[in-house]
């Protein structure tokens, strides 16, 4: 990507962190794309963060290492950053700024789209309702994913989030293959091996030719991470709204994105919010996550599954916290379950799918879907209380019903939650497992399901 035209300036006033401050600027505009050229002739991209009084503050995506005050040139393009898109992007691999990374030439563009997108008019959204079967019981049964939803995985270092996301991408792709299905994968500051794992997983399931990969790896420039999710989403929107595909976007790891944002904010000496993250982190994240959805009168959808690692497994840390305030639920992985060797180690009580209620039920999945899920939540949460109690008073101090709840907890983790990495369960199987677990309890305990469903599905063990 080399800039054609534009106005060049060579007076650099200051270089600090990822920022270059250009002086004597006359016609720069806010947000415009800038090309910085080093004394050695190397070209880097950046954009204008602030302009006025003859100065422009430029954020350099590829970092400022090696730049010098004298000899550096800045070319202002007069336009914002765009991504060339066409159907040819499918099966391709790009770098974190959207440049080909697979040795092949740049795809022939049918359009150039502003990578920042524009906010969807809420009046023009189509409310998400279509169930996506992932074949993972805990998700299909209790945390249903819906087309156009944004449902992140909150994980911690070393846990199996990548395995789970890859399983979902593979299995959801299989179900959706009749229709136009695509996967957009954005690696944001992750290790080579993690990106490679995804690529291989998509390859083995045959989904790679329906996928687009954007790779900013751990040793790639940090500031580029601001751009990676945006170019990925621009491509996803094109596939969804122009080509009518159902696109699953995986963004990993959003924690690295937020850290890059903090770095820029610190360099600008802004008043920080919590833990040094800028006060506008919420708004900034929303410009990424709110790009999930469906539009009235268009066929496709953008479903997002961002992955983030919670620093010190702390869900109140600003990154998971502000993410949870924007996304439509969260799948939280639990360290305890992970240590016990359970896969997927989903802590269901802390997890939530906000759109599940609209994607399941009579005419969509099954009439009892939501109620049996509620009963599972109730049962498992009672089981946790009883487990804590039995630590103190021992099993002897428990009532008969309490002991049944302990059994529910064990059956839940062993038979329902646990499943193989390649095990693809049908919804029928999942619901049957739920009723089997709930049926450990006496009927009178099932107060989240209506009597008519108990009559139909309850089977005393």
């Amino acid at each position, binding site marked *: 990507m080399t800039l054609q035209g534009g106005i060049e300036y060579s007076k650099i006033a200051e270089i600090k962190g990822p920022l270059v401050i250009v002086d004597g600027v006359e016609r720069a505009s806010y947000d415009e794309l800038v090309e910085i050229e080093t004394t050695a002739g190397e070209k880097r991209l950046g954009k204008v963060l*602030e302009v*006025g009084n003859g100065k422009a503050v430029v954020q350099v995506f590829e970092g400022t290492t090696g730049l010098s005050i004298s000899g550096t040139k800045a070319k202002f393009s007069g336009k914002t950053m765009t991504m060339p898109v066409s159907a040819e992007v499918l099966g391709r691999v790009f770098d974190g700024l959207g440049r080909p990374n697979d040795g092949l030439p740049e795809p022939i563009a049918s359009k150039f789209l502003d990578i920042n997108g524009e*906010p*969807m008019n809420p009046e023009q959204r189509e409310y998400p309702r279509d169930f996506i079967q992932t074949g993972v019981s805990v998700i299909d049964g209790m945390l249903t994913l819906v087309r156009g939803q944004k449902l992140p995985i909150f994980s911690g270092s070393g846990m199996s989030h990548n395995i789970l996301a890859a399983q979902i991408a593979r299995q959801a792709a299989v179900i959706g293959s009749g229709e136009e299905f695509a996967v957009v994968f954005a690696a944001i500051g992750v290790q080579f091996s993690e990106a490679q794992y995804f690529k291989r997983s998509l390859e083995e399931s045959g989904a790679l030719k329906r996928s687009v990969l954007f790779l900013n790896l751990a040793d790639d420039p940090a500031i580029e991470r601001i751009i990676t999710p945006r170019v990925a989403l621009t491509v996803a929107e094109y596939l969804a709204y122009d080509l009518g595909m159902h696109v699953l976007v995986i963004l990993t790891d959003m924690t690295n994105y937020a850290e890059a944002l903090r770095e820029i904010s610190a360099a600008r000496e802004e008043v920080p919010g919590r833990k040094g993250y800028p006060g506008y982190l919420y708004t900034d994240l929303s410009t990424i996550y709110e790009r999930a959805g469906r539009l009235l009168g268009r066929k496709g959808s953008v479903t997002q599954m961002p992955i983030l690692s919670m620093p010190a497994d702390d869900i109140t840390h600003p990154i998971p*916290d502000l993410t949870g305030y924007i996304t439509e639920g969260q799948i939280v992985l639990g360290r305890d379950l992970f240590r016990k060797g359970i896969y997927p180690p989903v802590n269901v009580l802390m997890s939530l799918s906000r759109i599940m209620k609209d994607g399941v039920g009579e005419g969509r999945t099954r009439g009892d879907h939501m109620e049996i899920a509620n009963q599972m939540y109730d049962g498992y949460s009672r089981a946790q209380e009883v487990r804590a109690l039995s630590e*103190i008073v021992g099993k002897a101090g428990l009532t008969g019903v309490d002991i049944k709840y302990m059994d529910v907890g064990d059956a839940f983790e062993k038979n329902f939650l646990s499943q193989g990495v390649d095990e693809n369960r049908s919804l029928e199987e999942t619901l049957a497992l739920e009723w089997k677990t709930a049926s450990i309890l006496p009927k009178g305990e099932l107060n989240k399901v209506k009597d008519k469903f108990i009559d139909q599905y309850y089977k005393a063990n």
Partner: protein
Amino acid sequence: MVAKGKIVWVSGPAVKADGMSDAKMYETVSVGSLNLIGEVIRLTGDVAFIQVYESTSGLRPGEPVIGTGSPLSVLLGPGIIGQIYDGIQRPLKELSKKSGSFIGRGVTTTPVDMTKKYKFTPTVKVGDDVQAGNILGTVEETQLIKHSILVPPDHHGGKIASIASDGQYDIETEIATTEKAGTKTQLKMYHRWPVRKPRPYKQRFDPTVPLITGQRVIDTFFPIAKGGTGSIPGAFGTGKTVTLHQIAKWADSQVVVYIGCGERGNEMTEVLVEFPHLKDPHTGRPLMERTVLVANTSNMPVAAREASIYTGVTIAEYYRDMGNHVVLVADSTSRWAEALREMSGRLEEMPAEEGYPSYLASRLAEFYERAGRVRALGSPEREGSVTLVGAVSPSGGDFTEPVTTHTIRFIKTFWALDARLAYSRHYPSINWMNSYSGYLSDIAKWWSANISDEWLPLRNEAYSVLQREDTLKEIVRLLGPEALPEEEKLILEVARMIKIGILQQNSFDNVDTYCSPKKQFKLLKLLVNFYRNAQRALKEGATITDIRAMSVISSMLKARMEIPDDQLDKLDQVEALMNEQFKNIVGVKVTT
């Protein structure tokens, strides 16, 4: 003189322009060659600091800035109900006609259809004396809303010199002329009002009538009054939005203003697709016929988010002035506060706590002061109210952060959401120990007069069971429940029943979603009677095991979702069955 200046600096939503010595504070201005809408928020010399309500991407120093001479205002007249607006009253439907699925910039539209004709019926005649706030006539805005055409609150009064006769007019028609000391003033069916200025009224009263929301934990335990203030803070996923949706759906007010302030797009869409199909339980008409939406979602421009709260409350006051009870819900005031913080940061103001400006508290106070039950200006005499309910989204779920702590100072009903309750799927996850209502004693009279004078004592008895359970929980945690004497085990049992049978309420269940005051009372009475009978049974030799084994308990707990409002006699049957089963335990004499 309107100000005509030039941009000198741009950074995100903040722009500085010089040559602006004629600009006024809070004046709206047109920014740049795209004519973006902005508002002056600071003046220094001839430099104006402007917050821009649209994306400033591509804006450049040197572009023009032109004043409009007036502060940010809303248009008030027929046609507002049923609309969805952005934060500065631009109708999103019209925007989509001009710029498609995504929100474009520099698009101008009118807030209501200026060409639509309404049937106007005058209520004054030539020669009548009128003053600010008087009703000139009425139009039917929706089947639910009879819209009174008001003399604007800042009108100087006078005699009616002309008035339109019964007929169909669009809102641009001059329907009346007033005359005072020889000067004539033309009036239309609408006027404009600056959003940051509260609309005046004649007199303010204490709230005494509950706002019935159909939500048991609210109406029965922590009620809010018509004209009152309430706040619902909670970590993500604890139920702020669902609760506000429930209030917007089921509250017994005539008009609802729903502000989506910096929240999710799909949540606004949900309201838009759901409300036209839901019927107001009090009138049987579609909910959309009484609802106005203001949607400035998280990814829409942050300055317009700051304005959205004022746009919404001004519309609410306008319908109040016609004599309506209006409820306004704002989701979330924290996002509004963050918008304030962002602009304050760009202004390089000295931050107070967590980067928020020092005037955060006074802005919150000013907002909540716009609630109230009032006698409106002008005649005929009429009473209306604005009830304000704001969600708060504390970072990390920590209620000691500035937005929560300052909000608490200015509201009277506090619904504290609790993540632990949400994790165990106890919804609404309003924590009964940390929540409170300052209206309880004021509104108890309404319950006595309309439902039963047993309401308050029963409510208090049920609440005391919850309080005792809370203290017993500590002991249970250390020693297990079996260590407690039988009466205390009963407390635990009844508290559990109150939680499942009353406090929990499933918004997504067709029956449970709305619970009439009468059903609330009957459920309350059923459970308290259970408690009284069980106490007696224990005294007469029964054991807690006998009581737990009563098969009626399961029916009592499911009554909320199995027995609809129009079959409340079934609750009497459950009560009879309960009495029967108590008799069978030890032949105790039952209380009814």
